[in-house]
């Protein structure tokens, strides 16, 4: 496939004697949104670190085409820069001062922090900081976004709204996204494919495709079906899987 963005071949990773990821194979195409769900501590964040290239895997190979930006769970903002300056970091290659300022303003509107341009991260709540992280990563032309629980510190309503708006942003400017989350609803509303990982050492136990345009209603039958499917996979619900969502093997 020529529009391949990321390819993992037989990737394993261990910290000392602790095996975290075991024989992972995964191909992610251009402009695809892949959600990775799994029990906590199963190695999801480690997987993102490998994908970002900041850590080499113990074995196997990872191919990545294009630049990637990571959106951290927390504290990835530079505390010595204001909200505005942090976001502008994502637009470093935009030479036109006026265009850059306009884009920062648009992003501030998107994350609904218009009045906070001059604030420093330590003056914001955890949820606000997460939104700034998101805006910074979205600023500019980066093709691959690696998101590590980007909405974990947001309240439920804000989370729903951000999901909706993010979906529209991706419609407007498609990107390849790997979304690590333990919010199963989030995965079902945003992802083209949901990869379910096992307990550590993480293996792929299922890949659930969702062919449905975004933004998706949380109560859309296919979304509900997907949620059910994941919960069943994780042993949290009795398995009654509908015909549309027969799990495809990885």
């Amino acid at each position, binding site marked *: 496939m020529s529009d391949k963005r990321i390819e993992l071949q037989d990737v394993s990773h261990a910290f000392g004697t602790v095996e975290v990821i075991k024989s992972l194979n995964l191909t992610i195409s251009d402009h695809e949104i892949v959600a990775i769900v799994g029990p906590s501590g199963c190695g999801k964040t480690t997987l993102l670190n490998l994908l970002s290239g*900041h850590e080499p895997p113990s074995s196997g190979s990872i191919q990545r085409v294009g630049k*990637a930006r*990571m959106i951290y769970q927390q*504290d*990835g903002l530079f505390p*010595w820069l204001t909200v505005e300056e942090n976001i502008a970091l*994502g637009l470093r290659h935009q030479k036109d001062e006026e265009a850059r300022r306009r884009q920062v303003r648009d992003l501030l509107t998107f994350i609904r922090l218009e009045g906070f341009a001059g604030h420093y*991260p330590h003056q914001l709540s955890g949820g606000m900081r997460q939104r700034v992280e998101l805006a910074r990563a979205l600023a500019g032309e980066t093709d691959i976004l690696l998101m590590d629980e980007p909405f974990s510190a947001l309240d439920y309503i804000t989370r729903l709204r951000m999901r909706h708006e993010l979906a529209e942003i991706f419609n407007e400017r498609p990107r390849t996204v790997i979304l690590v989350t333990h919010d199963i609803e989030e995965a079902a509303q945003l992802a083209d494919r949901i990869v379910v990982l096992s307990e550590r050492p993480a293996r792929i136990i299922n890949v659930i495709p969702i062919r449905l345009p975004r933004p998706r209603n949380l109560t859309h039958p296919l979304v509900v079906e997907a949620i059910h499917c994941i919960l069943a996979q994780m042993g949290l619900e009795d398995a009654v899987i509908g015909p549309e969502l027969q799990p495809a093997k990885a």
Partner: protein
Amino acid sequence: MKERPSSRQKILLPLCVLLAALALWSLLSVLRLFPESLFPSPGQVARGFYEEMQRGRLFDDTIASLFRVSVGFVLAVVLGVPFGLWLGHRVGARMAFLPVINFFRSLSPLAWIPFAILWFGIGDTPAIFLIFMAAFFPIVLATLSAVAGIPTIYFRVAQDYGIGGVEMLCRVTLPAIMPQVITALRVTAGLSWLVVVAAEMIAGRDGLGFLIWDARNGLRSDLLVVGMIVIGFMGVVIDRILVQLTRIPSVRWGYER
């Protein structure tokens, strides 16, 4: 919730303590519990202060001390911060140098006084040398530990956003260590001010340290107190100036966690 003091209280409360101390001092000297030559009264000290001001010596001595502290301190910062940066980034170099740096930091700078006089004689140079020895090692240590403690996440973010090389130093490393370095500057500037007094007492012909030593030799306890007051006051002034650095918006995060 904690009560916030009003700005009037902030001035009045310390003033009360000051006046009470002054009253106690006056009382003790009026009662003549100690001989006058050993326990000058506030009036004597005020007259001594006026006398010294008239002769201009107090001013000259203050300038001499400030000059020595400035030169020694600035030298320590200019050499110590880059050295600390380098050590902070190089684990091997850190392992090699850390014991030596810790040794010299623990060695009282006053222990260098004999060598300072033997090598540099009397005057500005030995004092500057001693101040440098007092400030350099703590600054190196503070800088290197600040650098070593920068969260890896900042460097990763910087890489993701195409920041590298010199830009990494200027836009990530330096701002990340700034709050800790400023704290170290405050501590070492205070230390330098302590050291200059001792240095001038032994290896000086002028300066505030020499002033109080000279006052003792001349049995002028009033001038001794004048010197002490000026030394304490200038120490506070230096710290108040450096504390302004902590008010810079881009370093506030380091003090408001």
